[in-house]
């Protein structure tokens, strides 16, 4: 696994791209299950890439490093899903938001609050859930997704 504090200056080597590395989805979700939210950070233009990936979409550089993310941030936009895909029906209506973490990395997630109680700029904190507690229809999961945790945001 690439070290969080490494100063990567070039492309990942083929042997760096394994299911143990957060530069792949299995490695990213293993780290998340262990309580660490990882992003890649471009060492050329500082863009965060969440989940981590080998190249920066903003500037094209492959000089990317890993950076553990803060769990707190604020709501950039939000809505409510009244009729979600069938695997998520039991959670409806689902409040979802785009959240900008305090590092400036962004990700989408469910918010554990009603639509009416959420506003742009609200402070939220990421929480990692065991997939079984979320009770998504097992039919929805691909074989490699079954153990992956699910994240939510709680209002602060």
């Amino acid at each position, binding site marked *: 696994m690439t070290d969080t504090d490494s100063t990567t200056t070039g492309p990942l080597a083929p042997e760096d791209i394994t299911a143990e590395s957060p530069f792949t989805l299995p490695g990213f979700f293993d780290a998340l299950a262990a309580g660490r939210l990882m992003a890649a950070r471009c060492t050329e233009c500082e863009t965060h890439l969440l989940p981590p990936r080998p190249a920066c979409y903003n500037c094209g550089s492959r000089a990317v490093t890993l950076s553990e993310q803060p769990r707190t941030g604020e709501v950039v936009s939000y*809505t*409510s899903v009244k009729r979600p*895909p069938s695997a998520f029906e039991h959670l409806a209506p689902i409040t979802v938001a785009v959240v900008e973490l305090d590092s400036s990395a962004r990700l989408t997630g469910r918010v554990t609050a009603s639509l009416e109680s959420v506003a742009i700029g609200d402070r939220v904190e990421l929480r990692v859930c065991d997939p079984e507690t979320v009770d998504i229809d097992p039919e929805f999961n691909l074989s490699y997704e079954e153990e992956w945790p699910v994240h939510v945001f709680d209002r602060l």
Partner: protein
Amino acid sequence: MATAHLIAVGSSPLGKTDLPGRDLFSRAIAEAFEGLPDPADVVDGLYVGAQSERYENQIMQGTLMAEWAGLRNVPAERVEACAAAGALALKNAVRDVRAGVHDAVLACGVEKMTAGGTEGATNALGAAFERALEQRSGITAPATYALLARRYLHETDATERDLARIAVKNHRNAASNPRAMFQQAVDVETVMDAPDVAPPLKLYDCAPVTDGAAAVVVANDEVAADLQRRHDAVHVAGVGSAANNLAVAERDLTFVEGANVAASTAYEDADVDAADIDVAEVHDAFTVCEALLAEAAEFAPKGRGIETVEDPGDRSAGWTDVQINTSGGLKARGHPIGATGLLQAIEAYEQLTDRAGERQVADANTALLINEGGVADAHTVAHVLTHND
């Protein structure tokens, strides 16, 4: 480089129909080739845009549609870019004709969206969104666009009522479009009082689930001259396309940069400016898209795209005189995903050849098409069409 012309167009009825996909395709082909020789005597290949194989459990639509058109042993490919698949088929056909690879190519699109009911459509469309973090958070198409709309309303002076007026305009336009799914006007109060889908988006902010097919024949100078009176053909003058991020979280929520790149590239290819565009069909899958795309196409100053509903003389300084979505747009003409980009081309063809009846824009000579797939401009294909004088 050879010149690419649109020489014939056709579409199926749009809405919930009793025809499966291939039969919808047959309707579109029957119209496009009315009065022309057999497709096998005209075209050398086919591209078909189709969003998902889940609706009818069928891939290999290239092969299947070629058979149904009477084509054999020619290149026939399905292309996929979610809702931009139709324009992608057109782009590939234009590329082949321009390069001299083929003299004429059929660009078509088909989607039988109602085959699996609302649940089937929701699940099929859901595959267009980023899987690991966004699909697994339970998002849907309306929800991703609602995230754009919420932020747009937050950053600009626009209101939910302004979005409603876009739906009203497009229904008014569709009322005089014989191809449209909804040929009736609605008023602002009806739109505002409709049930929420994903706030701030309500029912009439969203394009419908639609069955349909569309086809256009793209041909070089020789074929066009053979088969069509010159003034009846339309020239594909410019093409542009670009991909943006798939995850909604990672993109600018109020500026569709990929669409801006695609439109700018098409303008440059056609050697025109935004101000030269008389009519535009832009991808209003949700009302907010029309405002965002008016800005991305450089018709409107940033934050003022919402004035798309105003008559040209009543718009803010910096707006062009373009008329947008004269067909009724995706909202009211209908949105059979893989066919939508070709339906946009058909409206431009009718406007530029003076066939648009009551909705005809006077002196329409140059058109822009913007077709998008994924969340807004996750994939955009833009075309500039001009009339052959």
